[in-house]
């Protein structure tokens, strides 16, 4: 309803899709349509041809990689991530984050590929993928390349994708021993837009008492997920206790100039980044210690 006139094609293969995308500048991939269709209805962007990739079997599977990681097809839905025994077995928190994206209708349609390629700063998956060290597998008519997630998100609704290029899958490396992931957001009101998020991955030393390595990703502080290297440096070697984490997170975002928008001022975001960072790291420590690879808390 109220879309501008637009053409729609449903190619039979990724190859065909790439052909169409390469030959028509006004063509755009349609995955779950949960953002693209809204954008078209609001008429903030316009497209000549919608290339529906959502039903391509090649893009819809989740496979275990040789090293124990995951290869997730770009058109795997949030619901499929949430319910996948494979994902839950090795990357529990990724399933948990997917399980908390908006409502069931959106989870039935929205895809990991769409969530990343839109690069909407409020989207849930980019920060956790950066924290897990995921790699984006891109393909065009002329070739393939791999881009680490941390380099894939370029800006407000901007990614490393070149015209005519598709994201075909996301490779998530295995989570090492004694490691875990955490994820925390702050949103004012149920199902409201998060004003700040943090995703963390920590590896504990053999005794489980200290943090050996960490990755701390902040979202909604800038327009793309960013790692706080200074905070990571303070975390590495710190005791794996709430007090030590609190101390290490006290300076989170201090060197940054957080964005301001209707959901929160720059200064409030800075303060809340500290809180969500701590919550995410504490979750990650619990997960690292737990029998599961993710804690039961968080994901939201």
């Amino acid at each position, binding site marked *: *309803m*109220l*879309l*501008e006139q637009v053409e729609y094609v449903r190619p039979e293969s990724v190859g065909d899709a790439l052909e169409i995308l390469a030959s028509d500048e006004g063509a755009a991939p349609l995955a779950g349509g949960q953002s693209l269709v809204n954008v078209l209805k609001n*008429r903030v962007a316009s497209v000549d041809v919608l290339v529906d990739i959502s039903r391509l079997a090649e893009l819809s599977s989740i496979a275990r990689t040789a090293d124990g990681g995951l290869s997730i097809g770009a058109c795997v839905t949030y619901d499929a991530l949430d319910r996948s025994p494979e994902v839950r077995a090795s990357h529990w928190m990724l399933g948990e984050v997917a399980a908390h994206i908006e409502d069931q209708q959106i989870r039935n349609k929205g895809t990991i590929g769409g969530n990343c390629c839109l690069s909407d700063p409020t989207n849930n998956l980019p920060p956790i993928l950066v924290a897990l060290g995921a790699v984006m597998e891109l393909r065009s008519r002329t070739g393939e390349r791999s881009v680490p997630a941390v380099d894939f998100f370029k800006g407000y609704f901007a990614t490393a994708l070149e015209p005519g290029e598709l994201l075909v899958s996301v490779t998530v490396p295995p989570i090492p021993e004694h490691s875990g992931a955490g994820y925390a957001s*702050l949103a*004012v*009101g*149920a*199902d*409201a*837009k998060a004003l700040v998020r943090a995703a963390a991955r920590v590896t504990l030393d053999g005794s489980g008492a200290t943090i050996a390595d960490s990755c701390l990703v902040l979202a909604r502080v800038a327009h793309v997920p960013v790692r706080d290297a200074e905070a990571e440096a303070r975390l590495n070697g710190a005791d794996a206790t709430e007090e030590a984490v609190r101390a290490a997170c006290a300076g989170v975002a201090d060197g940054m100039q957080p964005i301001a928008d*209707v*959901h*929160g*001022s720059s200064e*409030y975001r800075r*303060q*809340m980044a500290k*809180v969500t960072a701590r919550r995410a790291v504490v979750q990650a420590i619990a997960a690292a210690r737990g029998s599961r690879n993710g804690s039961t808390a968080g994901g939201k």
Partner: protein
Amino acid sequence: MTITSAPVTGEATKTWSGRAMPRKEDWRLVQGQGSFVDDGGMYGQGYAWFVRSPYGHARIVSIDCEPALSMDGVYTVLTGEEAKAMCEAPFFAIAPPPGSLMQEWPLAVGKVRYQGDAVAVVLADSRETARDAAERIVVEYEPLPAVTEGVAAADPTAPLLYDEAGTNVVWHGVFDYGDVDWALENADHVVKLDRLHFHRFSSTPLECNGAVVDFDHGTGMVSVLSNYQMPMFAAMVIGPTIGVPMNKFNFVTKDIGGAFGLKIGFYPQIAALALLSKKAGRPAKWTEFRTEHMLTAGHGNERTFIDIEVPVMADGTILGVKARAFDDAGAYLHYEPLGAVIWSQVVPGCYKLKHVRVDYTEVVSNKCPVTPNRGYSRMQHLWMIERIVDVVAHELGLDPVEVRKRNYVQPEDYPYETPNGCIYDSGDLPRSLDIALELAHVDEWRARQRELGTGSGRRIGIGIGSTLDSGTNNFGQSRIINPELPFSGNGEVAIAKLDLFGEINVNLGTTPQGQGHETTASQVAADILGVTPDDVTVSTGFNQANNAYVGFSGTYASQFAVTGLCAVMGAAQKLRHQIVKLAAFALHADEDEIELAGGVARVRGDEERAIPFIGLANMVYTNNAGLPAELLNECDLNARYAYVPPFEVPDTVAKTGNLTLTYASQVHVCVVEIDEETGEVKILDYAAVDDCGKRINPLVVEGQVHGATGLGIAASLYESLDYDESGQLEEPSFYEYHVATSLDIPNIVCGDIESPSPFTPNGAKGMGEGGGAPLHAVCSAIQDAIGAGGPIVTDSHNHWARVYEMLQRAPGAPRGVEVISRSAGSDTGATSL
């Protein structure tokens, strides 16, 4: 203490009135079988799309419609200048000068005054085409500086919205009762507050505005199928503008998906659609979109109070209040400046304040026009009163419960005359408060609060909101704004009819939007006519052709239980009288021997002598030869009754008089937990005690309490409509404006007492608006959590970031409050905190 829901006074309920019955209309609404404005249409209709300004304030340099007109499927385009040329006058102004100089036409002429102001409207063969065409219309604007804050707008140096008026001030008046200067000089303490701000928000109806309008060139009839909630007000405002007399309108409403007062504001769109239809020669259908609604359909009144001074005695008796109020009406005056007097229905709030002076200024600004919004204008004032009562308790170290109880109008004081001559009809505020405190487990939470102490990172706060829902307006109060206005009193009409086969039908002048009128009207009629509510068909919505209306007809301002149901009562009694008369004739009995039961009129004590309603209908409609003319004249089985509440015209110079008939009261208690590191406010317990006199259907009442409470909590924590300096709305969609859902609203425990109104024939009081109690209670709870010495809660909206900022504010930073103590024995003397 045990809590019961039993009425404290009042007679035993009759058969149907007073029963908590499920609503008759719900079955069709929950099965998707309701019929809303967008479900309707007219033969040959086109679809309308408004071209709206992206600027907050700009001069219209030119409009080029050609690119739209040349598209296939576009019927026509109407611009502001063209519309004006088709009009006989600007819309009728409620305000005297200078407000009356701020003229409005169906579409913007010469300049746009807020983001979303309509400059043209397209009619096409589909919504899609209309929208595409609207995008092709080229409007050249010259942006102008904007003013988006009420106090600033009143400044003579501010950018002017209406050059013709020479000011942004719409109306100014001083409401001065008692002797506040004396009180301030003689009080033991004077509590001073710099500023309190009541924010802008909307009640966000599920259904946006909509209308299908046909201008019939043959008959001159203008048919308006819409979800407009006060149809004859729209007719009275737009008729003289577009040159249509009242008897050439046919306003119709169907099911309405929420209105809250906001659906009084869109008469300019109806006028524009009428002109568009006139120009195109076919009906015009318009269904508002959500972002369009948020930008243009109307927001609630935003009010800033400054220089607030409160004289208080040592024992906590509050003598009164002095303040300056600035109300920001937005860009056009829709129903305004009525808000400038409507608040004075509740001058002292729930309290016996004797000395009140409010210096009131209403301004225009480059923001969406305000419309009435649930709690309209009284809520803003009551929030200010409730804040000052709370702050007084806080600053003087008194118990907020005791301060309220000491100052409340007491049960024995009713009927209580306020300093401006309003008569509070009945109530028991101290008991309402006790019940609310009990239902919210306040004793337990106080203990938990003490246990928690400091250092846990969490704080508990307990807040009280005492408020009034004044209902059944005396429209004579409009003359306090403008003595020339031809308005006073109020009224509503119902028609009760026995149809051809003896069916009972009731037509109302109201426009229900979820208030259950079909149910309660049939309960009332059933009792009088000796049938069950299922036997009574109440037509849905308003239809001018039914002739069941007066000028004030509609559903707004907490009055249906009084105006609507008393009209039903009167009409049903009239019909009953006719039925009895006919039955007495048919059964050869005396009228006082006739009783009605189960759809039959019979002679008391003689079951054999009976006639069913179908037999009586037959006598009148289809088998009337030989009946006495006198009987037929009197008994047409079509009984129309206009209920008119008893009112006098107020004193427009002293600004006194009885402005509303009834005063329902609400006392809410809210317990919050605040997370110190984020400012998150979580509601732990919530109780709402309502006293609206006799309840015709307690279930409907509870539904209204839940709705009003949900909206109030949403406004206090989540929903705010803010503009940047250039006049851009920062929350034009649900992406930015977090509309609270059931997930955000805590469990609400309801309690009730019934203090019947002595002034209404049925003892009932209007209660749908709810007086904004949650805003008062949530602010009070946050204040309690902040604790002694902390900043004052000065805004009605407390987003987590604001709460966080208050908790962070350095000790010693300005708190926005000052207490000057003068009592002789006081050991503090004059303190400045």
